[in-house]
């Protein structure tokens, strides 16, 4: 069936003109070089559900799309027939300021959502930086915000979901209440599911009133270990920082380039942020400043707030880089106390002539984004050995290494996800039950038992 | 799916005439299974088994009361209960565990037959209820422990014959009996017009069985403290063992006989408060009213006596203590007797007495409200379990690094002394009133 025929079948089944097979329109939806046969842009949740039912019937593979920001994080698709763009689903059906909840459709950009909430003096404290990302993408990738220490992770704020299941059913799990233990906590299952178990069309989150005051400290250190020690001192204290971010390499340089930022000396930087009551923030800033200096900071700069640009980089080291630009992003997960060592080890292992690195570590989340840019003399695909080595080293301490972005050649050799062990097997079993026909993103995340 | 017999038959009734069925019917509320009593129950802590928890035992006893289980089925698990009543203190629903437990023991007592019953009665009626015999036995036991006789008998098989094999080794070292009466002067018996307000205050001392035979020093100390506080203390003749052990063993008739004797004895001193220094006796005598409730002739008299019963710490707490003057420079841990803290709700008063002593440092013992494992004859019947419970107590005691552990019940005094000698700790065991007496020159 040709691209145009697929589009026609979809339009007929959905009873609206939502699909296209135009190669130009399909181009931005390539994944690792593979183009879909049709792009479908549903206008309602029901369209999404019907699309999935149709795909199940026809045996098509569907990949849901937001704005494509996290799309690089996935194995080379095994099959790819329909790119399902959710961008038209961008309404906010319910913003309940009294109840402190918001229900928004999956395709809404976080920037738009933030603005609409801001008008009511509210904030969804996830993904504070990159406004281009969509809500659906945030759920699929389970992205933590840079102020997770204060506000929590998506799992702490997500209350409910509306999902189109792979069999075409449109279901709703959870409610706009902050406590609910009726049946399984299905929304949690969709966090980090990479769009594999259904297409999230709408989500309900807990929101917060905007804080009275923010405050940011930027401290310079001669190296990563010093910065990590300072982060640890603050992490252990009852001072309550909202954000503890370590920066190394090009990440420090990028930070220095932002206008109005007076970044102290040193090869490593620690960004500490506070949100809250004015008097408390004042005290937190003063106390934390002292702790930082006592932990051998070269200097500490104060800022009134975290600019969106800065936050965006803290949340994703690759922020601002074009997808086409050759790069590799490794995402390491370790314990907080392992952050400094893991960072050093990752930088050491991946130190390849021809590339330069930048690293951003969320201390409390134990997350390290290592960004390599340039063109290694040996070619990207020859980094496989180093990645295996890093995975082995991290695996030994219970950590993980995900290839969040990489050229196809490298992905094909080492795989994006690493060994997920027993947990991976459980995910696979759930995938097999919820999507037995492998409609959604086959091959992109979990090995497909039927086809693999 | 199989049809299963589930979910709550409307609360079943407990017909029948057993003590347990009656107790079940008399109970104002029934266990809601919240489990709040689990963490305070020593046997549950040691065994980790629901049937050895208060909630489990109540469920088993309810089932027996309702004819769903046979008495023999539950006897083992319920029999492991220390009767410490920590569960009652913890219960938010006010479940009277003790009443069900006692009723069950009565039923078990009536079921006990032949040789075992005879042996129980020999101990209870032949010894405990007869002060002179008891004193003789205590004396004999001391001689026995001190002389080589212990070793001799152990090898002779005689103990096995008496059902004491493996048990007598668990007897604590006994203190020297004291001819305490000779050392104490008692005031004239208070007249019938006696009041406790204004002028000289009056009280009557209950001497009990074991206390009287083995802990005369405590009585002497009690009398001394009372005198130092201007209280005239009478010692009515004709008083007997309080009967608690008889009741716990299901020998209700004996218990009631003893109760009547005590009531009559203390009626001779008018309405003076009846002061005791044995928590177990106090807890039981405060319930004489219930014990004789169905005896029209005695019920009001029993209730009247019960209302006069005061633990010595309780008696002193409502008075302004004459400040003791002599320093007693000791680190002292207070361990709550179950029958004081759980059965009578008295925990602050004895501590206050100790705090009043100049130079004395009171140390809070973790889990001080936990049973030490003595629980009457319990340690004889369940040596391993009692040993585990006692060992836990000793761990806390060792960590507290004190000179003295104070507790106000004969069983506990003996049990703690046993634990201390087993662990080789260097700690004295004293009744709080003894320490206070020391502080009054």
């Amino acid at each position: 069936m040709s691209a145009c025929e697929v589009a026609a079948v979809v339009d007929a089944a959905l009873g609206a003109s939502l699909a296209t097979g135009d190669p130009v329109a399909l181009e931005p939806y390539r994944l690792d070089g593979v183009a879909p046969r049709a792009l479908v842009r549903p206008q309602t949740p029901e369209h999404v559900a019907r699309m999935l039912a149709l795909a199940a019937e026809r045996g098509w593979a569907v990949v849901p799309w937001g704005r494509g920001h996290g799309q690089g994080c996935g194995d080379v698709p095994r099959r790819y027939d329909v790119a399902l763009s959710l961008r038209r689903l961008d309404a906010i059906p319910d913003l309940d300021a009294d109840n402190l909840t918001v229900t928004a459709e999956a395709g809404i950009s976080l920037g738009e959502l933030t603005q609409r909430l801001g008008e009511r003096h509210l904030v969804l404290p996830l993904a504070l930086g990159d406004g281009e990302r969509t809500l659906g993408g945030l759920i699929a990738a389970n992205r933590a915000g840079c102020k997770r220490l204060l506000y929590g992770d998506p799992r702490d704020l997500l209350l409910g979901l509306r999902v189109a299941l792979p069999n075409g059913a449109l279901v709703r799990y959870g409610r706009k209440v902050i406590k609910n233990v009726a049946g399984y906590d299905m929304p949690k299952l969709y966090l980090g599911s990479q769009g594999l178990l259904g297409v999230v069309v709408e989500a309900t989150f807990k929101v917060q009133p905007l804080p009275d005051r923010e405050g940011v400290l930027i401290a310079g250190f001669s190296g990563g270990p010093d910065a990590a020690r300072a982060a640890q001192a603050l992490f252990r204290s009852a001072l309550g920082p909202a954000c503890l971010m370590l920066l190394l390499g090009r990440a420090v340089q990028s930070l220095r380039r932002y206008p109005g930022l007076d970044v102290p000396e040193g090869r490593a930087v620690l960004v500490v942020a506070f949100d809250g009551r004015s008097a408390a923030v004042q005290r937190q800033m003063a106390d934390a400043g002292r702790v930082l200096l006592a932990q051998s900071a070269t200097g500490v700069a104060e800022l009134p707030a975290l600019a969106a640009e800065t936050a965006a980089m803290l949340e994703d080291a690759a922020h601002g880089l074009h997808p086409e630009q050759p790069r590799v992003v490794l995402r390491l997960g370790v314990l907080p106390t392992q952050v400094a060592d893991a960072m050093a080890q990752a930088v050491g292992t991946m130190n390849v002539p021809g590339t330069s690195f930048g690293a951003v570590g969320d201390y409390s989340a134990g997350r390290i984004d290592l960004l390599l840019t340039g063109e290694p003399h040996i070619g990207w695909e020859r980094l496989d050995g180093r990645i295996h080595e890093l995975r082995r080293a991290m695996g030994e301490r219970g950590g993980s290494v995900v290839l969040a972005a990489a050229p196809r050649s490298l992905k094909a050799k080492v795989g994006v996800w690493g060994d997920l062990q027993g947990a991976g097997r459980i995910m696979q079993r759930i995938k097999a039950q919820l999507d037995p026909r492998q409609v959604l993103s086959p091959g992109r995340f979990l090995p497909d038992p039927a086809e693999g | 799916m199989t049809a299963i017999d589930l979910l709550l038959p409307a609360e079943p009734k407990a017909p029948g005439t057993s003590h347990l069925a009656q107790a079940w019917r008399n109970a104002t509320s029934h266990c809601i299974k919240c489990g709040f009593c689990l963490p305070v129950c020593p046997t549950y802590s040691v065994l980790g088994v629901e049937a050895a928890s208060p909630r489990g035992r109540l469920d088993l006893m309810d089932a027996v009361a309702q004819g769903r289980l046979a008495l023999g089925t539950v006897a083992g698990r319920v029999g492991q209960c220390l009767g410490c009543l920590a569960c009652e203190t913890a219960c938010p629903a006010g479940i009277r565990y003790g009443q069900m437990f006692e009723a069950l023991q009565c039923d078990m007592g009536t079921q006990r037959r032949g040789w075992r019953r005879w042996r129980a009665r020999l101990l209870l009626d032949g010894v405990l209820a007869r002060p002179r015999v008891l004193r003789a036995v205590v004396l004999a036991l001391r001689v026995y422990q001190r002389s080589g006789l212990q070793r001799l008998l152990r090898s002779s098989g005689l103990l096995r014959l008496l059902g004491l094999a493996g048990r007598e080794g668990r007897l604590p070292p006994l203190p020297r009996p004291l001819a305490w009466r000779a050392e104490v002067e008692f005031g004239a018996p208070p007249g019938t017009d006696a009041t406790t307000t204004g002028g000289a205050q009056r009280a009557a001392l209950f001497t009990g069985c074991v206390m009287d035979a083995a802990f005369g020093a405590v009585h002497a100390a009690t009398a001394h403290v009372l005198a130092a506080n201007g209280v005239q203390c009478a010692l009515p003749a004709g008083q007997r063992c309080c009967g608690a052990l008889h009741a716990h063993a299901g020998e209700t008739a004996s218990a009631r006989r003893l109760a009547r004797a005590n009531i009559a004895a203390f009626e001779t001193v008018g309405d003076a408060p009846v002061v005791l220094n044995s928590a177990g006796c106090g807890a039981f005598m405060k319930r004489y009213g219930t014990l004789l409730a169905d005896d029209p002739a005695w019920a009001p008299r029993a209730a009247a006596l019960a209302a006069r019963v005061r633990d010595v710490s309780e008696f002193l707490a409502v008075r302004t203590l004459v400040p003791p003057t002599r320093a007693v420079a000791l680190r002292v841990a207070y361990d709550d007797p179950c029958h004081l803290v759980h059965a009578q709700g008295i925990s602050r008063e004895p501590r206050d007495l100790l705090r009043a002593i100049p130079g004395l440092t009171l140390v809070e013992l973790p889990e001080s409200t936990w049973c030490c494992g003595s629980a009457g004859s319990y340690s004889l019947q369940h040596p391993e379990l009692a040993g585990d419970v006692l060992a836990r107590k000793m761990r806390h005691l060792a960590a507290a690094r004190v000179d003295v552990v104070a507790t106000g019940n004969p069983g506990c005094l003996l049990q703690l002394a046993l634990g201390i000698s087993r662990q080789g700790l260097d700690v004295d065991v004293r009744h709080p009133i003894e320490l206070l007496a020391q502080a009054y020159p």
Partner: protein
Amino acid sequence: MSKRQILVPQLQRLLGADAVLHAEADRFVYAYDASVFRGTDVLAVVLPANTEQVAQVVRLAARHDVPIIARGAGTGINGGAVPRGDALVIEFSRMNRILAVEPDNRLAVMEPGVVNQDLKAHLSALGYGFTYVPDPGSQVVSTIGGNVGNNAGGMHCLKYGVTANHILGLQVVLADGEVVEVGGGSATRPGMDLTGLLVGSEGTLGVVTRITMRILPLPETVVTQLALFPDVSAAANAVSGIMAAGILPAALELLDRRMMALVDRFVHVGYPEHAGAALIIELDGLADGMDRELRRVAEICNAHAALEIKTAQSAAETERLWLSRRAAYGVAASFSPTVYVMDCTVPRNLLAQAIAGVIEICDARGLEVVNLAHAGDGNLHPLIPVDRANAAQAAAATEAHHEIMAMCVAMGGSITGEHGVGVEKQQELGLMYDADELAGMQAVKRALDPDGRCNPHKIFPLRGNVGDIAVGAASLDGGRLP
């Protein structure tokens, strides 16, 4: 030979004779939990000492196709631990070791049998200044494993979240005996939040054998206040007002007039008779700016016609306030043969309306009701005293329960905020979720426990006849369940 006769010797070989309970009296008491339900006789109860023993038991059970029930302290009030049909009970009283406490990573690792309160005492004794926050009413006795199974809530969920928010990773024995680790100390992990899925699954997806949890630094200051209001709706509106002002209290607990009267008889707080509702408000955090925040709270309460606002002046006063809240359930229980404790949530701003609805529903049936609520969470706990011997009253309470749940669902809320579904609310789950939604959950169940051996016949409406409450409804009046 009966299944018991076959299994017991094998279990004894695996675990040792003292770790297998099979005598009648020992089995008998595993038929209940803290709910009003009583289940069937169990095959046996095992007391494993470690994960490997649990796995062996589960494998043996799998070979003989025997269901397993993992049990904590049996304090659940939805019947989740009540056996339905032949089953092996796994009792965790011997798996109660705290394996690691790492303040530098803000985590602790332990076995499921650790009692919530014991963990807190342990953390406090270590002196790191860290604690584990979730504090269900049963914390003195309930185990962490049970808290995880039911995603227990508590008084401090408003600011700190429920159990799920504090559980980082789990070791689980799956129905086939495979031992799997999900989640872990690092918050960064690829793939679905399986830990979040397993927490609150009431033992129906596997047997948790080890728990990695978050511990947090103790707050610098804690201030506890009591605010009295003329009625529930004034108090509830004050709650919304406080939250809307950007203040996130650690706790916001509501007691209605009848509850105050009952409680005051036991824990003397001095709730005055003219007050219609009380709020216990707790603020915590840094000392700086606390005064201003307290003033702000007072202003908001006053704007909602508060009669009186008192701040606890001593630890003893604070403790008395909290005791008055924690004792509520037991106090209510001591006034009637049974108390039917309900649990449901509504959007916070609808709390007053919901409580009014509860009272109306109960009044219409001649039932008494007292109300408690975790007001900040919109979590109601109506308590209905019931005499189960009075069949008509028990039936009325069952009906009222169903109607209250339906009301909350209609208000956009949930049939359970923190107690779970168990056997009590299997039919009510159908009020919230339709057949497609339940099928999605059941797909998850099939994925992890294809033969339905983990705590069977729980959570899901029986007979698949969703929404038909007449079929197999658990009831207070002696209804038999299919």
